[in-house]
Every structure is written in C-alpha cells, then in structure tokens.
C-alpha cells in the first residue's frame, strides 16, 4: 500500500538541497551535451581536449563527480564556449522582485487571473478536437 501521493512526494523533494543541487548539475550537463552534439565531439575527444580520462567525463555527466569552477571553464573552452553564471531571484505569483530588488505582492486580481490562465492552459492541453468539435456542432444545430 502506498503511503504518500505523487504530489506529496514531489512537494517534499523540491524543498531539499539535494534536489536543488541536482537541478544545477542537470542544467550544466544538458548544456554540455548540447554543445558536444553541436560541435560533433565525443566523450573521449572532450576528455583528450581537457587532458582527463573518458571515465572522468562519464562521471561528470552522471553527476557522480562535482564540477569545479576550473572544470567548467576547461570544458567550456574545449567546446568553444564562454561561461556565464546568473543568480536569479526567486519569483512566483505570490511575490515578485521589483527593479530595486524589493519583494512586492502582486494584486489579488492578478493572482486570480494567473490561476485562471493556468486552468485554461491545462484544459486546452486535454482538449479533444474530434469529440469537442462534434459536441459544438451538435449544440449549434
């Protein structure tokens, strides 16, 4: 018997440091894979370029070895890239950061509007063109 729902499991996971750290690793490794593909470079070729072993690259891509500033710069160089790092203020519908970095509360009506827009988007995703258009046609005539 399952003791927690998906929602409960996911909500608790997203608050944890391990989840957030892995999010950064996934972001970096996805960018590396994209650039490797674009440049036509294999793991072993990348390893040769930065003078490490191929298994080391595999470990980095698996997230088993931590990236250092040095390893990121070396990999970026090897992939003909620079590195840009941004710290992004957390934003959500309950609190935005204005131009001066102060947290502001959006108006209540706007929060409602955002919720309605989300609901509408979800409805449209599950919109079945065939049955819905038939229903519309039937009702119109």
């Amino acid at each position, binding site marked *: 018997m*399952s*003791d*927690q*729902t*998906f*929602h409960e*499991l*996911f909500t608790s*996971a*997203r608050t*944890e440091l*391990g*989840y957030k750290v*892995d*999010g950064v690793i*996934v972001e970096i*490794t*996805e960018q*590396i*894979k*994209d650039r490797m*593909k674009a440049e036509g470079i294999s793991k072993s070729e990348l390893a040769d370029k930065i003078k490490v072993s191929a298994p080391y690259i*595999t470990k980095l*891509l*698996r*997230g*088993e070895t931590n990236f250092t500033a040095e390893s990121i710069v070396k990999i970026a160089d090897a992939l003909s890239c620079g590195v840009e790092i941004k710290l992004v203020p957390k934003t959500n519908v309950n609190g935005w950061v204005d131009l001066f970095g102060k947290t502001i509360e959006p108006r209540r009506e706007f929060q409602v509007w955002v919720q309605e827009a989300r609901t509408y988007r*979800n409805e449209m*995703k*599950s919109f079945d063109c065939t049955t819905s258009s038939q229903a519309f046609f039937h009702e119109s005539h």
Partner: protein
Amino acid sequence: MIALKIRTGDSFDIFALEEDGECKVLEFLNLISKSRRQCFLKLVNGFDRTADTGLMQNEERFKPLHAGIFEFRVPGEVRILCFLDGSGIVVLTNGFTTDKMEAGTRHASELRDRYLDAKRNGYLTYREDNL
C-alpha cells in the same frame, strides 16, 4: 486502466499508469524516497526538467532503450521506464533497481501494450493527481 497525470509542464505532461488499484511507479517512488533519497531526488528532478523543458539529452540521465521504451536513470542504482504518447505526453510504467533490469523492461512493454489497447478501445480513464 487509469492514466494518472502527475506533472504538467510547457513541454510535456507526465502520467503514471494505475492498474487494478496498483500504481507501480508510486509504490517504487515511495520505497526509494526512504531507502535511496538521493536517487529519488534525481528522479523527481528528471521529471520536472522533462515536463518544463523537454526530453533530456544526457543519456546518463534519460536514455532510449528499445521499441519505444525510455528510461529515467540514476546509473548503477535505479530506473523508471516510460514511453511517449504523441508529442506531448510521457507515460511512466514502472520502476526498479538495476539488478532487475530484464524483468522491469519486459513489464514496461506489457504495460504500454495494455495502455494502447485500453486507449484504442475506450476504457482508459484519465485522472489528475493534486498538481
């Protein structure tokens, strides 16, 4: 059979299959959320990333297996298998530790066939988890 929507995003909606009141993916996630917490966090990250930005390119984390079955993976540890339905839906079938790979993959294919059959014959039910 029930397709339970567990995550919605700009790129994909993610569903998990429930059959006879049993959801293999939920049971597995509940199990590893206690015994293998880091693996569990990585899998949740994989689902979130996929829903929001699309299928991951890094095959150490998401990999096509065969016959349309894919795996969310934590190398050497755990797998959650899935398949794509159209261009915007990922359906999770089952999860297992890597020592049970063969049986797990076979089970994923069977579940996919039953899902497609249920969909084709109109007895697939959709339900939403509390997103």
